[in-house]
Structures are given as C-alpha cells and as structure tokens.
C-alpha cells in the first residue's frame, strides 16, 4: 500500500515539475523516459538494500510505475487535451524570416542557438529557412524553404 502511494506521488511530482520546467530541460529524453530512468533504478535499489529488502516490494513498485506509464500513454493518446497538458505542444520559434521572440524567451532558446542549429542542418542563411520548431521533447526541427526537406536535430548545449 505504502509503496504504491509513494510511487504515485513521486511519479506525479516529477511529471508536473518536468512539465513546468519546459521542453529545453528534457532535450534528449521524453518526459516518460526521464521519469522511468529516474525511478526504476531507485525502486530496484530500495528493494535490494533499504529497509524492505524484499523482491516483492521491488516488483510492486516497478509494476506500479509501469502501470502509471501505460495509463498515461493511453490517456494522452485518447484525449488530446490531456496530451497537451502533460506533453505540451510544439513551439514555433521562427517562420518565414520572422523570429517569435516571446516564445524564444519563454523557451529559453537564443537566436544564436537557432542559427547554430540551422548551420548544423546544412542551411546557410535565414533566407533559406522556412520553420524552426521546438518539439515537445526539447529537440529543434529546422525546415528548409526550397525543397521542404526537414532535418531534425538533437540539441547541442547552448
């Protein structure tokens, strides 16, 4: 009982905190992957060397966490509003020669960073650039104007 509650509280807490922090903090991992990476080892360790040494406790903790992850994925797929609330929506940082400065400030992405990502995508000038989108998982997508080729880039530290 206590294990289920603890997992539930920590899972909700980390999910909310990550959502509040914003997309840039996630970068490499999706929120679910990050929660899993943070919690599964902790729960497994708890079962091995803390007060409750039992495998039973570890299995309860891990199955609770995986159940939450599964239910979360079902709810976010089925209900778009839940998906937007938990995962967020993509943010447009640049479109047809115009920077969206408010969004850049909120997402903490500098123009230098956009230019750098643009260069990494093989795009030389802003004139060739159609879209720069900050995806919900923290990655930047740069889309070229002429041939509409999309290049998805991993963020490199600012």
């Amino acid at each position, binding site marked *: 009982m206590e294990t289920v509650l603890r997992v539930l509280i920590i899972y909700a807490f980390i999910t909310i905190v990550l959502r509040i922090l914003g997309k840039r903090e996630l970068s490499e991992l999706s929120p679910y992957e990050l929660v899993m990476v943070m919690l599964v080892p902790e729960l497994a360790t708890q079962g091995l060397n803390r007060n409750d040494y039992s495998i039973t406790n570890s299995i309860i903790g891990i199955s609770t966490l995986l*159940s939450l992850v599964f239910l979360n994925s079902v709810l976010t797929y*089925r209900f778009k509003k839940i998906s937007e609330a938990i995962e967020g*929506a*993509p943010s*447009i940082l640049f479109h047809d020669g115009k920077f969206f400065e408010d969004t850049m400030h909120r997402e903490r992405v500098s123009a230098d960073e956009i230019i750098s990502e643009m260069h990494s995508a093989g795009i030389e000038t802003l004139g060739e650039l159609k879209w720069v989108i900050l995806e919900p998982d923290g990655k930047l997508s740069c889309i070229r104007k002429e041939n509409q080729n999309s290049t998805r880039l991993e963020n490199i530290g600012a």
Partner: protein
Amino acid sequence: MKEEASTRALLKAPAIRRRLKFWRHQWVAVPLLLAIPILAVSGVFGEKSWELTQMKNDVRIRVKYPERFRYNQLQPIEVVVENLANTTLKDVEVRFDTAYINKFSNVSFIPEPHNAYRIKLNTLGPKEQQEIAAEIQAKDYGKHAGSVEVLAEGAVLAKVDISTIVFP
C-alpha cells in the same frame, strides 16, 4: 504570442479520431501488470497477523502470529497461556515447533527458552495466565507450518497449529 499561435495552426495535424486498440498480448499482460498494484493496495502482499485460540483440558492458549510477511521483516509472536481450572498446574512448558522456528532468523524469546524452543512457565495457578513474547525475522521463502503446544508435567494439554507465508 498571438502571431505564434496563428502560425502554429499551419502545422496542425489532420483530425483523425483517436481510438484505443491493443495487441493481443497486451490484453493479457496489461491486466496482470495493473493487478499487482491493485492487489498491493488491497493488502494482499502486506504483513498480516492472525490469532488462534485453543481451549482444552482446562487450559486456554492464545497465539498471535504473522500469517504472512516479507523477506527480512521482523514480526512478533505472542502466546498467552491461561489456566482455567481451580487447581495449580505444575511444570508448565510452551513448546514451539523446531522445524517452524528454524525457517526464520534472529529468533528471540521472552522468557528465554531452556531448550530448543521450550519455554518454562513453571507453575500456573488457578485462573492465572502467563505470556510469552517472541520475535522472528523472515528468512526462507514460502509457506512454513508448525505448532505451539502447552505441556504440563510432560503431557500435551493444548496445541495450536500455525502457518506463515514468507514473500521473497
């Protein structure tokens, strides 16, 4: 922000109704996965104590013991022996099943046993009761069964069968 929002509409995904569908193996595996925390919340995997009372030959024995608990946890066993007769019982002993006790570690008794899990209560006056407290730590997994007996002058007066499940 308004401009960003209106531009975002250009990137909107087509409206496809979201339906839930699962693979066949998920219909089996997911309920099993969900069952574990539900059962845990309902207390199936938690510690549970049970109390049994036996009244025989004017002796009442009440044993409170762990019915189930998890590996390495400590749990108490309480035994209360009461003489219901109007005569004094001599050389009273409480005997715990050695095979049962050996399945646990860090076993301690108050009062201390004089022999492999035989505890002397000596005399038990009319309507008098005495208590034995023990503590056991889960070691071996599985179901362990045993008994607690009350003896007077070597003869068994009352016996309670107990069993404990230890989760891994």
